C-alpha cells in the first residue's frame, strides 16, 4: 500500500513568490539515485519539516540547496528568481544559512572568534566591536550566548545557538537546521523551538530536519517526506495525518511499536555487572569518570542517558576493560556468579567502524573475531561451519547482513553496524554493553535491534545501553542512569520517568 500522493502542491499563480522553491532536483552518485525529481517549497514565516530515513536523500537535498553539491538536473528559485548556488559562500550571499548536525564550530576558539570566521571582516579581528554586535544580535533573537566563552566549554545546546546566531548575523533569511534536536536535552529542545518561533515571527523561513513526529507536530507548519530519494509527501500539513501514516510514508511499510509488557526484574537476581567508585582519565588527561557506582542485574536493562561527552564513552570502555581505571573496581560476572573469564560480555561500541572492525576482512571473517570458540577443521578454521553459523545468526537476529564474502571496507556505516550487532547478539551473553546500538540504522532495523536487545534481557542477560534518544531509553530500559560531567547525576525507574526531569539531570540540575 502507498501513502496518499501529493506530488505537486496546488498552484500559487498570483501569490507572492516563495522564499525558496526547489523544482525537480535530481542527483546520482554512480548507480545510487540520491535524489530523483525532488521539490521543496518554503514560504516566509514558515517552519517546514523535512523527514525521511537515513539514506532517504535529505542530506543530499540540503547540500544541493547550500551549494555543496551540484544537482544533475532541476532548478532553484529564491524569491522567485532563478539561482544556482555553486558553493556555500554564494548560498550564504543568497540568504541561505545552514546549521549542520555535527556543528562546524572550532571548539578551541571563542564564540566571537567563530563568528568572525564566518563573517568576512577585515584582516584585524577587532574583537571588542564584534563582541558588542553579537550581544546585540543575541538579545534581539533571544539566543542567549556569551561571546567571550570558549566553544569547548559550551553545551551542545549552547553551541547550536552559536551556529544559529552566526547564520543570522551572516544575513540568512532561510535557516536550515539539520537534525537539530537529536543531541539535545528536552529543555534545550524547548528553548530551540522558542527561537524557531521567533524566527518565524520575524518572517524568516526555517527548514528543520527531524524524524521525531512529536517535534514535527509541535513546530512545523508543513512537512515533506523523502523515501529513497523521492518525495512521498509534499508540503502537507502534519495534522492531516496519523503518526502511523507518517511513519509508513517514511519507511514504506507499517512498523509495529515495541511491546511494553515485559517480565519485571527479579529483585533477587544476581548482579552481573558491578562498578564501584570507578574513576578514569579521558584522552586529554582530565578525569572523565569521577566515581561511578552502577549495578546491572541478570534480566535487567539499564539505560545511560546524558548529553554528549558526559563520560558515556569512557564508561563503556572501562566496562569492557579498554581503558585503565585510576581507582575503583569493575566486575563482570558469568550467570553462575563467578567472576568472568574473557568473552562474557557482548559489546557494541559507539563507533564500530573504528573499534570493532578490521576493514580489509570479510563479513565471514568478522564472525569469528569475537573471541568465542571457533569451529576447527584440522589446524585451521572450518569456514563452511562458520558460514552455516553466520546464516543461522542472520536468520535469528534478522538484521539482513551483507553477503559473507563482502569486505567491511566496502560497506556503509549502517551495514557495518548490522554485522557487529548480528555477531554480538546472535548468542547469549551474560553481560551486553551497547553504545548507541540503533544509530545509523533505518527505522525498521532500529526497531529490530531494540527487540533483540530486549530478547537478551528476557533470556537473563544484564544489558547496559547508552543512548542519546530518551524515547528509546524510556521504552526499553528498566532503570535510566543519567550521567553529567563524569558523575551519576541520578537514577530513575523508566516506568515513571519524566522527560523534563531527565533533562534537568542531564543538564546538571536536580530532578
Amino acid at each position, binding site marked *: 500500500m502507498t501513502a496518499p500522493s501529493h506530488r505537486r502542491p496546488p498552484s500559487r499563480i498570483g501569490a507572492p513568490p516563495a522564499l525558496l522553491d526547489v523544482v525537480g532536483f535530481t542527483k546520482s552518485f554512480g548507480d545510487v539515485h540520491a535524489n530523483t525529481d525532488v521539490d521543496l517549497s518554503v514560504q516566509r514565516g514558515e517552519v517546514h519539516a523535512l523527514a525521511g530515513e537515513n539514506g532517504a536523500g535529505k542530506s543530499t537535498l540540503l547540500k544541493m540547496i547550500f551549494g555543496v553539491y551540484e544537482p544533475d538536473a532541476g532548478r532553484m528559485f529564491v524569491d522567485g528568481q532563478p539561482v544556482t548556488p555553486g*558553493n*556555500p*559562500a554564494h548560498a*550564504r550571499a543568497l540568504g541561505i544559512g545552514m546549521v*549542520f548536525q555535527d556543528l*562546524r*564550530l*572550532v*571548539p*578551541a*576558539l571563542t564564540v566571537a*572568534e*567563530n563568528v*568572525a*570566521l*564566518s563573517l568576512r*571582516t*577585515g*584582516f*584585524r*579581528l577587532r*574583537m571588542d566591536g564584534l563582541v558588542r554586535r553579537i550581544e546585540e544580535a543575541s538579545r534581539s533573537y533571544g539566543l542567549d550566548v556569551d561571546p567571550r566563552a570558549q566553544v569547548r566549554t559550551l553545551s551542545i545546546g549552547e553551541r547550536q545557538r552559536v551556529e544559529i546566531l552566526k547564520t543570522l548575523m551572516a544575513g540568512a533569511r532561510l535557516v536550515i537546521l539539520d537534525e537539530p534536536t537529536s543531541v539535545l536535552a528536552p529543555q534545550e529542545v524547548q528553548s530551540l523551538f522558542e527561537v524557531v518561533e521567533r524566527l518565524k515571527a520575524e518572517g524568516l523561513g526555517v527548514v528543520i530536519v527531524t524524524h521525531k513526529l512529536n517535534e514535527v507536530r509541535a513546530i512545523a507548519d508543513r512537512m515533506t517526506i523523502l523515501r529513497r530519494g523521492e518525495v512521498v509527501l509534499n508540503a502537507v500539513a502534519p495534522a492531516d495525518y496519523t503518526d502511523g501514516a507518517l511513519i509508513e510514508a517514511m519507511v514504506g511499510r507499517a512498523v509495529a511499536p515495541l511491546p511494553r509488557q515485559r517480565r519485571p526484574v527479579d529483585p533477587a537476581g544476581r548482579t552481573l555487572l558491578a562498578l564501584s567508585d570507578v574513576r578514569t*582519565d579521558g*584522552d*586529554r*588527561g*582530565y578525569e572523565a569518570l569521577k566515581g561511578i557506582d552502577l549495578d546491572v542485574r541478570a534480566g535487567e536493562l539499564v539505560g545511560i542517558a546524558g548529553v554528549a561527552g558526559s563520560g558515556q564513552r569512557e564508561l563503556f570502555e572501562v566496562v569492557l576493560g579498554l581503558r585503565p581505571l585510576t581507582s575503583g573496581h569493575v566486575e563482570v560476572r558469568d550467570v553462575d556468579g563467578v567472576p568472568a573469564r574473557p568473552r562474557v560480555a557482548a559489546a557494541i561500541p559507539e563507533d564500530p567502524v573504528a573499534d570493532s572492525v578490521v576493514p580489509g576482512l570479510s563479513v565471514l571473517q568478522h564472525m569469528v573475531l569475537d573471541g568465542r570458540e571457533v569451529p576447527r577443521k584440522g589446524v585451521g578454521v572450518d569456514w563452511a561451519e562458520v558460514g552455516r553459523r553466520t546464516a543461522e545468526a542472520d536468520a535469528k537476529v534478522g538484521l539482513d547482513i551483507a553477503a559473507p564474502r563482502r569486505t567491511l571496507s566496502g560497506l556503509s556505516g549502517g551495514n557495518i553496524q548490522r554485522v557487529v550487532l548480528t555477531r554480538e547478539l546472535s548468542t547469549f551473553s551474560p553481560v551486553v554493553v551497547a553504545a548507541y546500538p540503533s544509530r545509523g540504522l533505518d527505522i525498521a532495523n532500529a526497531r529490530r535491534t531494540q527487540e533483540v536487545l530486549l530478547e537478551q534481557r528476557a533470556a537473563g542477560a544484564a544489558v547496559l545501553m547508552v543512548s542519546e534518544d530518551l524515547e528509546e531509553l524510556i521504552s526499553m530500559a528498566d532503570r535510566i542512569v543519567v550521567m553529567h560531567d563524569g558523575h551519576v547525576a541520578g537514577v530513575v525507574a523508566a516506568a515513571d520517568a519524566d522527560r523534563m526531569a531527565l533533562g534537568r539531570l542531564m543538564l546538571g540540575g536536580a530532578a
Partner: protein
Amino acid sequence: MIIDILSGGVRGGTSLLFAGLGETISERAGVINLGTEGAMLVGALGGYAVTFHTGSPWLGVLGGAAAGALLALVHAVLVVSRGANQYASGLTLFFLALGLTALFGVDYVSRQITAFTPVKIPVLGDIPVVGPVLFDHDPLVYAGYVVVPLVAWVMFRTRAGLLLRSAGERADALGVNGYSVVAVRYAAVVSGGALAGIGGAHISIAYANSWFENMIAGRGFIAVSLVIFAMWHPVNVLLGAYLFGAALSLASVLQANGVDVNQFALNAIPFLMTLVVLTVLGKRTLRKAPDELLKVLETAKA
C-alpha cells in the same frame, strides 16, 4: 658566570626560538614537521653561502629563510596535497637535507664571511645584569624579541591567525566558511620552514660564524619537542628556547670560565632535559594540543 650562562641562553636559544616559532605555526595548522632539523640545516648553509657571496649577512638571513621555506614546501606537498605520513615525510626530509648540505657545503668549509657582530644597545645595554644578558647581542637576537609578539599578534588578533588556528583545530570549519584548508596549511608549513631557516642561519652567520657538516646537531628536534612543552604558545616558546639555549651553551661557558667538565656529558644535557620534561608532563602536554594535530600525534602513541 651566571650572567654568562643567561646571556649564552639568549644567544644560543635564538636559533631554537626561530625554529620553535616556525614549528608552532606549522603545528597550529595541524602539520607536524620533523624536517625542522633539515630546514635549519639548509637555512644554515643557505645563509652562509649567500653571506659569503654577497658579503651581507642580512641577505644571508633571506637566503636561509628561502632555503628553509623550500624544504618545508616539499613537506607541504607530501603531507597536505599527497596525504603522506607526516613523520615519515619529516624524517626523510631531514636526512635529505643532511646529505645535500654535506654535499654542497664542502666548498664553504673554512671560508671566511662577514658575520653578524654583537651590537650593544645604548642605555639599555648598560643596565647591570639585564644589559649584558638581553641587550648586548647580534641583530638576529633582537629580531627574535620582535618576532615573538608579532607572531602572537598575528596568531591571536588577525584573520590570518584565526584561519591558522581553525585549520589545526577543526579543518571542516574552514571549508564550511568558504576557506581552503589546503591553502592555509601550505602557508603555515612554508612560513614555518622559513622561520626554521632563519634559525639555522643564526647558527652559521651569527653564532658559530662558520659552516660545517651537521652543524645544527639536533637543535631542530629540540625545537619540535619545545613546541609541545610550550603548549603551542609563542611566548612559552621564547622562555623554553632560552632555557634550552642556556643548556646548549653551558659547555662553552663553563670551559671559557676554566671549569673542568666533560664536554660530551654537557652536550647531552638538553636532550636529558627533554626526556625529563616529557616524562614528567606525559599526557598532560596534550591538553592544549590543537585537535587536528592530536589526530596526528595519536597515531604515534602506543
